[in-house]
């Protein structure tokens, strides 16, 4: 099975996305089953890899020039070198082996976009604070941070072509289909969800993937929280990760990029080297 994780980054003055992708790739190598742990990095700055101590965690590096105003994740289907791909946001970390999810998707579908998220306490996220567009326009509640697809399959070709149309023509699609609550930006999540709705893609009722989504306002706290790290701690060591009083075992979408410090990288590297 030619499967791999696809990480797509662009150079930024504000965030070191290479470092985040490196942390994620290390976590994949540290936790996923052999054969289901390949990683391909798509970047517009391949030179940035040279600073890493263990660039081998990227099995492949593809250079891709960034188009201004374009999120390259919209081209994940064209960019992937794998037959079966999970494209991830790079601000994520694996803490346990989730290979069984991939094995299920390879066997059972051509396309799957995560359709739920959890709080750090393990509760299903029910707040639509960041997703008014989805609720008002009755869109499926999809999260592009974990997208599985089979390359060149009928369903994925149709889906990715349509979402590219949506991202390329946001005003027209918003006026037509998102009129009840227009988003400020038609991002990947909105485009994926609208494409899924227009194509009437089948819904899944699975207990996985289990992905903890650390956006502040969806944590069931009684106060406003822009940044979750203002309220609870991030405690990472070789034994695992605790967020607040909670041990984390699921895939973490940590959102706050500052938590990937040199110390976190060092722990991940140390684990990889001793594996």
């Amino acid at each position, binding site marked *: 099975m030619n499967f791999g994780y696809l990480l797509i980054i662009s150079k930024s003055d504000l965030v070191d996305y290479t470092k985040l992708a490196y942390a994620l790739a290390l976590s994949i190598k540290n936790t996923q089953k052999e054969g289901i742990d390949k990683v391909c990095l798509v970047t517009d700055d391949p030179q940035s890899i040279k600073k890493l101590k263990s660039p081998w965690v990227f099995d492949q590096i593809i250079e891709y020039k960034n188009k201004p105003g374009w999120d390259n994740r919209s081209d994940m289907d064209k960019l992937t070198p794998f037959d079966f791909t999970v494209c991830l946001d790079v601000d994520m970390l694996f803490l346990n082996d989730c290979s069984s999810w991939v094995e299920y998707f390879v066997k059972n579908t051509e396309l799957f976009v995560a359709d739920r998220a959890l709080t750090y*306490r*393990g*509760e299903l996220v029910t707040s639509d604070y960041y997703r008014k567009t989805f609720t008002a326009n009755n869109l499926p509640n999809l999260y592009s941070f974990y997208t599985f697809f089979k390359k060149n399959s009928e369903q994925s070709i149709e889906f990715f072509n349509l979402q590219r149309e949506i991202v390329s023509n946001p005003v027209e699609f918003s006026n037509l289909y998102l009129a009840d609550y227009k988003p400020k930006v038609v991002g990947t999540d909105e485009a994926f969800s609208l494409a899924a709705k227009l194509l009437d893609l089948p819904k899944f009722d699975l207990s996985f993937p289990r992905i903890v989504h650390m956006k502040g306002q969806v*944590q*069931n*706290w*009684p*106060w406003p929280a822009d940044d979750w790290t203002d*309220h*609870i701690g991030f405690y990472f060591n070789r034994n695992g990760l*605790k967020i*607040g*009083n*909670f*041990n984390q*075992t699921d895939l973490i979408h940590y959102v706050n990029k500052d938590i990937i410090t040199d110390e976190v990288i060092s722990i991940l590297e140390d684990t990889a080297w001793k594996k």
Partner: protein
Amino acid sequence: MNKGIIVFAYNSRKVDYSLLAIISGGLAKKHLGLPISLITDQSTVDWMNENNTIEKANEIFSSIILTERPQSENYRNLSDGNEIDNIPFINANRYSVWDLTPYDRTLLIDSDYLIFSNRLRAYLDSTDDFMIGKSMTDLGGERVGTLDRYVSETGPNLYWATNVIFNKNKDTKLFFNLVDYIKENYNYYSELFRFYPRPYRNDISFSIAKHTLDGFTTNTENSLPSIPTITDKDILVDVSVDGKLTFLINQGNNDFVAISVKNQDVHIMNKQSIIRNKENLLRLI
């Protein structure tokens, strides 16, 4: 395996917990068909003797287990409808139930938990080592706040020690030892889990112990069902001969709405209103 029910009661100057225990114990015994024991102290027994309730207690409880009265400077505000009183709250030895229970499998209930169904019997007949109420359900509407659902705003799930079922074995001994440890180090745990440490609450110690032994994760599987609850701001106003309980639900601003329940176990936090209806409740035993 012998199964039974335990209720704790230490009278305070303001609340006759022994009478609450007689009522809740009698109802539990009747509806679950199991023996029940009372854990109390000599001064509470003396009060029952003076108050002529000891006979009823002896009829209901298969054993009355005496302990030292727990030392307590624990006070809490308890409402009776719109009236508020600050009362002593003697609850610090609940962890000792593991040592004190005469049963292999025990249902521990609060003395303000009135049982009118056999719903808990199925849980008593199951084999899970430890089960606790996973949440509370407000019978008066949607008044469940963050601190009714969690130990603190950012902390773990709040389990309700109003109902606990456990087998007496080394695993559950570990649990109750941990509850005791948390009680002894309550200020430390209040910093760690960010809850206000006064008054001491068994619900919080039990919740942190469960959260810890569940590997610092939430695990509500194999829990007891949500506890149907009437808050202390609500008032039990009538108990009919057929077992229907009528409450006035406090809507705020001196507005009350009446609701009735029947054949429904219910946690009535307004203890004084249970006591005001003692004759009718005792008739249902």
